[in-house]
């Protein structure tokens, strides 16, 4: 299948989920269930995407595991996004050089 078709579907859906509520939606959502679902979904998505895929992200489970541990500790200490991301990566690199 042509990659352009994939990109059109990908970009089209991504644009529509942003555009429709921003442009046309005027009503207030009152359902507690829907509000709660919408509140939790970003965390659920990111968590499912990260675990266990992060352990395979460097091609070496040892370096990935140590990189993940450093990332979690720094994120737990409320470090900025870019610091956490770069430190995980740098740790994995250093471990790769050392072992």
């Amino acid at each position, binding site marked *: 299948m042509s990659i352009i078709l994939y990109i059109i579907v990908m970009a089209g859906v991504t644009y529509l989920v942003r555009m429709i*509520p*921003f442009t046309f939606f005027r009503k207030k959502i009152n359902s507690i269930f829907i509000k709660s679902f919408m509140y939790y979904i970003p965390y659920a*998505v*990111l968590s*499912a995407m*990260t675990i266990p895929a992060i352990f395979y992200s*460097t091609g070496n489970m040892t370096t990935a595991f140590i990189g993940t541990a450093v*990332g979690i500790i720094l994120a737990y200490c409320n470090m900025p996004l870019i610091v*956490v991301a770069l430190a995980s990566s740098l740790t994995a690199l250093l471990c790769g050089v050392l072992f």
Partner: protein
Amino acid sequence: MTKKKAFIDGVKDGIPIALGYFSVSFGFGISAVGLGISVLHCVIISLTNLTSAGQFQGIQIIALSGTLIEMALVQLVINMRYSLMSLALSQKLDSTFTLKHRLFASYGITDEIFAVCSTKQGKLSPYYMYGIISVSTLGWTFGTFLGAVFGAILPPLLTSSLGILLYGMFLAIIVPPARKNHKILFVVGISAMFSSVCKYFLPMISGGFAVIICSVLSAVLGALLFPINDTEQD
């Protein structure tokens, strides 16, 4: 406030976002080229999507020749959070925000841009949003381009360590709220558990669908067990 001043304000507020995006999208470019996607296509994906998690999952689907339905559903679920952000921002727009501006500005609603726009004092001008969006898009697209081009030249050890970069960013987004809020911790934990079960015990479910099933199931469980009250929704 003039249009020009609003735009410049937006650019200033967007610079830290652009720097963060640059390094993450560099990792995206490397991953995408590693999966066999051309440099031009990588750049087009970043320019037209402007989203990390969706693109990252999207290139896996392309690499495995998944169906277009799977692609659409995965993007819908992963990016559903933007609907909520768009909804919240739509309440904050100033009177010059006409239909045309809404159609353009909605392209650039990302987690970070939403965070900056929603916490800004007063109403939002379209030109302020264009300022943030243009500098962030530049960082995201240029980073992708450099990652895609230099990914092949850099030593494999270096590029493989960059594979963890996007996931590191996800950790930075989910860990701090999970630490403060036990309900979020529950949802994050159960979703990680479901996702691991899919990976090790149900390998016939493809990665994209696994993310949908696990996250929808976890968010429904969270909503049923711990419905939120209005004060938590910011």
